[in-house]
């Protein structure tokens, strides 16, 4: 159990650290003159960061959830709808225990 002051300090540190990371990227880039190359770098960065997040989560996911992601990717390729892809992945993960039971 924390004292109130410790908790206030914890919250302050966490809020300051996350806010700093949220604004730091734009602040840093304000000092960089944009070129075709930096724009390609940022393009690659923007898709890589989300893809890396998925890959990192997949490493600790079980087979069922990993297969659900594969279903979502497949549905996305066909439907081009992020929402449908997400629902399909979730429905698949929810259905797996029933499929195995049969």
């Amino acid at each position, binding site marked *: 159990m924390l004292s109130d002051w410790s908790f206030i300090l914890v*919250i302050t540190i966490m809020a300051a*650290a996350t806010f700093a990371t*949220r604004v730091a990227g*734009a602040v840093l880039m304000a000092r960089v003159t944009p070129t075709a190359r930096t724009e390609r770098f940022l*393009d690659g960065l923007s898709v890589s960061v989300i893809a890396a997040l998925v890959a990192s989560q997949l490493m600790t996911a079980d087979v069922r959830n990993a297969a659900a992601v594969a279903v979502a990717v497949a549905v996305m390729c066909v439907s081009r709808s*992020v929402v449908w892809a*997400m629902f399909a992945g979730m429905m698949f993960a929810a259905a797996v225990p029933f499929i195995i039971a049969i």
Partner: protein
Amino acid sequence: MVIGDNRSSTSPDDVALTGAAVLRGMRRLLPVSLFVVPFGVAFGVSAIDHGVGPVQATLMSLLVFTATAQFAALEFLNEPVAFGSLFLVVLALSGRHVVMGAALSRWVNRLPVAKRLATLTLLSDANFADTQPLLQKGESDLGVLLGGGAIMWIAWTASTALGAFGGDLLGDTDAYGFGAVMMCFFAATVVGKLRFSSGLVLPTAAAMAVSAITLPLMPTGWNIILAAVIGGSLAAVFHAE
């Protein structure tokens, strides 16, 4: 992509931040935000288990708004608190926001400074993944980003309160497939983006490989930042004009 002298076709001169677009952003991410609820409830329940009061847990979600770092922080809540380590862990787990902010800078930095800060305050994985491709396709109203963040923030804070005050109402939500749903959303946004930029397929694949391989080797969070920087660098070097 057509590159002009000092601005590209993807960087509109007039960016705006309007209330109408904020509402549009909220509607876009409403379905996604519903799936945050089980995680928010789980955080609220877990916080209570770690000796945090329900008001404190809710305040944390309201003011910090970053799921992974908040779950990690629960392990630090014993006297004496290791404030330095807590700061470093939060920085590492939240550090990918720096990458996202940089990727959004060509739009965000066209706003007046106060609006820039407001737009970035609720930056998270979900509204970044949803809005960045839109901006690239010509969207010029950053209200969409702010609105998407706002609906995720509301869902996260409200569901934390639900779990902290109400307890574990939902039971084992993984049984309903909720454990996979955010990964599915993010994977789908990646596929959606790669459809329009085939030159980014290889850098993205490399980033995924780096992230997976370095996960056991680096403190959590840094593997994602390293992978993103490598993916971006490969794109800068090899991406066809």
